[in-house]
């Protein structure tokens, strides 16, 4: 089974890349192959290797957490398309504590991080409650909450001169104590954006793995996800599982927001949120990561790294005159093919089932 999952992901990636290559050839046949080479690793083989690698590792951290957020919900049979909203709320909480919480001293970043988790969790709780008690489909409610979250956060930021930098229409820089420590990593990786975030993300991955596969709680969540009727029949409280799953999923997305916005970034002023009327794409990237990683925590780490890798590659492809949107097309194609790879797998299972009359 595990091999099958891995192979279907690799097949999905290859099909997505072939599709992307075709698009690139149509757009410009001369830059297509150099572009592909750049994307698949050429960008990293550079004199700035260490810094680029450090940036890549940094970007992988939030990606792992959004992937875990979506993947965790998948395991319980829920489609958390609201990871973006939860991420946005987490971001807001992190920045708020990062600016106002100066009294917290060196622990400020920890509190900012925890605040993000709590806000993300609350934003996940809402669709969970709606699903459990009013049977509102979580896709509908969480899409709505994405927009409600974004506009609420935008309003709160714009209405607060301590948070909002009017000139750049961005949030202000957070307090120095609010940055996730970079320790020696930053020097090792040649002043890149890397910080302890990646270790936090991997630590959380291990916890999620443990919860899902080693505890009765995880057993119950997966039972509800695979067959809610059988779960109910065996005495599992289905609603409780649904709600908790959404809360944890939201917390993970919120943590991802903190991981990204509590970072110094490659420039020392840190990552700031640009106030605009568009949803952040981080949560949607999480869907791709979860699908490609087949919702397994370790698969998600690999796929988060891979998707960050080609996203970074796409960024550097621009030097060849290729539009960065191509990367989005390729990622979209990979999502498509990975969904199809699962279909193929499901078909196989169906045929196997049919053979047992």
């Amino acid at each position: 089974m595990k091999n099958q999952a891995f192979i279907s992901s690799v097949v999905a990636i290859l099909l997505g890349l072939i599709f992307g290559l075709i698009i690139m050839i149509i757009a410009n046949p001369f830059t297509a192959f150099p572009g592909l080479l750049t994307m698949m690793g050429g960008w990293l083989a550079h004199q700035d290797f260490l810094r680029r690698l450090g940036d890549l590792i940094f970007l992988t951290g939030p990606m792992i957490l959004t992937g875990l957020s979506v993947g965790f919900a998948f395991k319980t049979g829920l489609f958390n398309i609201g990871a973006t909203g939860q991420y946005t709320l987490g971001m807001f909480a992190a920045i708020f504590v990062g600016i106002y919480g100066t009294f917290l001293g060196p622990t400020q970043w920890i509190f900012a991080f925890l605040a993000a988790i709590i806000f993300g969790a609350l934003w996940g709780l809402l669709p969970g409650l709606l699903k459990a008690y009013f049977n509102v489909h979580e896709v509908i409610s969480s899409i709505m909450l994405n927009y409600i979250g974004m506009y609420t956060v935008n309003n709160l930021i714009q209405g607060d001169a301590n948070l909002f930098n009017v000139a750049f229409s961005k949030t202000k820089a957070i307090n120095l104590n609010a940055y996730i420590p970079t320790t020696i990593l930053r020097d090792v990786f040649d002043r890149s954006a890397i910080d302890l975030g990646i270790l936090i993300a991997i630590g959380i991955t291990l916890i999620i793995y443990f919860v899902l596969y080693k505890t009765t709680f995880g057993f119950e969540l997966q039972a509800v996800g695979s067959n809610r009727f059988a779960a109910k029949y065996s005495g599992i409280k289905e609603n409780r599982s649904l709600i908790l799953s959404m809360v944890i999923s939201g917390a993970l997305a919120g943590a991802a927001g903190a991981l990204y916005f509590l970072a110094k970034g490659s420039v020392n002023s840190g990552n700031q949120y640009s106030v605009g009327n568009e949803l952040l794409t981080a949560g949607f990237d999480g869907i791709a990561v979860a699908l490609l990683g087949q919702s397994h925590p370790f698969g998600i780490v690999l796929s988060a790294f891979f998707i960050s890798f080609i996203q970074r590659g796409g960024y550097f492809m621009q030097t060849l005159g290729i539009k960065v949107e191509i990367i989005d097309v390729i990622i979209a194609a990979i999502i498509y093919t990975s969904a199809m790879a699962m279909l193929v797998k499901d078909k196989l299972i169906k045929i196997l089932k049919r053979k047992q009359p």
Partner: protein
Amino acid sequence: MEAKTNLPIISMEGITKSFPGVIANDNISLNLMEGEIHALLGENGAGKSTLMSVLFGLYTPESGQIKKHGEIIKIKNPNDANRFGIGMVHQHFKLVDVFTVLDNILLGVEPTKGPFIDRQLAKKEIIALSKQYKLAIDVDAKIEDISVGMQQRVEILKMLYRKNNILIFDEPTAVLTPQEIEELIKILKNLKKEGKSILFISHKLNEIMAVSDRVTVLRKGKSVGTLFTKDTTPQALSNLMVGRDITFEIEKLQANFGGIALEVANLTFISTRTKKKVVNDISFQVKKGEILGVAGIEGNGQSELAYLIAGLLKPDSGTIRLLGENVTNHSVRYRNDLGLAHIPEDRHKFGLILDHPLYSNLSLKKYHKQPFQKHGIIQKKKIFQLAETILERFDVRSGKGIQSLTRSLSGGNQQKAIIGREIDSNADVLLAVQMTRGLDVGAIEYIHSQMLKQREEGKAVLMISLELEEILKLSDRIIVMYEGRIVAELNPKETTKELIGLYMAGGKPS
């Protein structure tokens, strides 16, 4: 058998159809003569339905050919089959519930007048057909409002309206009461008289003896022979079907009742959708060491009764007492832990998580208890031990033991796994619903012996079943449900199948 021509109307020659890992039909040949009723007998999984699906164009065989009147025909889909005059009544009817009988019959072959459906013309034709073949129907009624027997007649008229003359019936009696079965047998004989050729799938020997001219027996995907029905006996057929001698009688020890284990009083459940009292003021008791059989036609409230007792539905009024304790408002888990085991009606929907490994299903009722978890952490070793024990004790066969994907098990073994899990929970009350549905003779025999063992061990068993034979064979007492009520309480030693059937259909002995 009087054939009108020398050539069979349909001959299937050397049909082979395999699915990954299993050969469902292995070089099967079968001749259907014009105007005969040809029965196809075999256990579940013998390949009957596959063979008929090949004939109806649902499956393409890897090898073999189909001839009509000696000429090779290619049937790629049901439309082709229809063109060659082949119609099929599936075990689960293919009818649109909210459409009228008329519209269901017309669906796909609507006669038109300009852009409109000419319902008047169709109605006349259909009424004429129903008279010709003595198929009583109400053309304007909606499917959801008519009886299962009438729904089946609608399916038959669908074929006749399409001018099919080769009719396939897939286990047509599975959903009928004894009276309806007799009615169907008359209908089949009528159809034969009118020159139709009929293929009749069944695993019930008495029906086959009553209705067919010839019978082809399948076993494990192979044809083991075609016999003239008048030259054979049920015992001979069943030996052919199973491949060994089977005992029809099982030994049932003297009853030894204890105290009341399950007591249901004035239980009522109102469907939120139809606002009908699906379970209507039901009261009964089950003692330790007793098997109480609940008979009834599907859809008369038995399923809901089971869900109410299990705690999956909440009653509108009434009480449920389990081992003397009022559990009406307690959770499923509370009841399970107190002493209720439940073999659910739908083993795929409720009984198992098909995509999880077998061990996880075998521990579904115990994983939350010591020593299977410690401080919320699952103790895999203990769970594996538990699963291995159940596997061995109940002879559950699977490809990779307890690690097998539950979906990969055969239906019989899946059911054995559920029964093993439930019996292993050692609960005082066992709720068994349709426990042998869709299983082969061997598995049924085994499950029946397990039920009697439970009875001997002093467990109270509430057995809900559509199979009258099963109810008569195992029960110490029988109640019959009709439209949500208990309409009769009977002693199996003093009653007959016919009498139960009468009560099941809402009648009363005159």
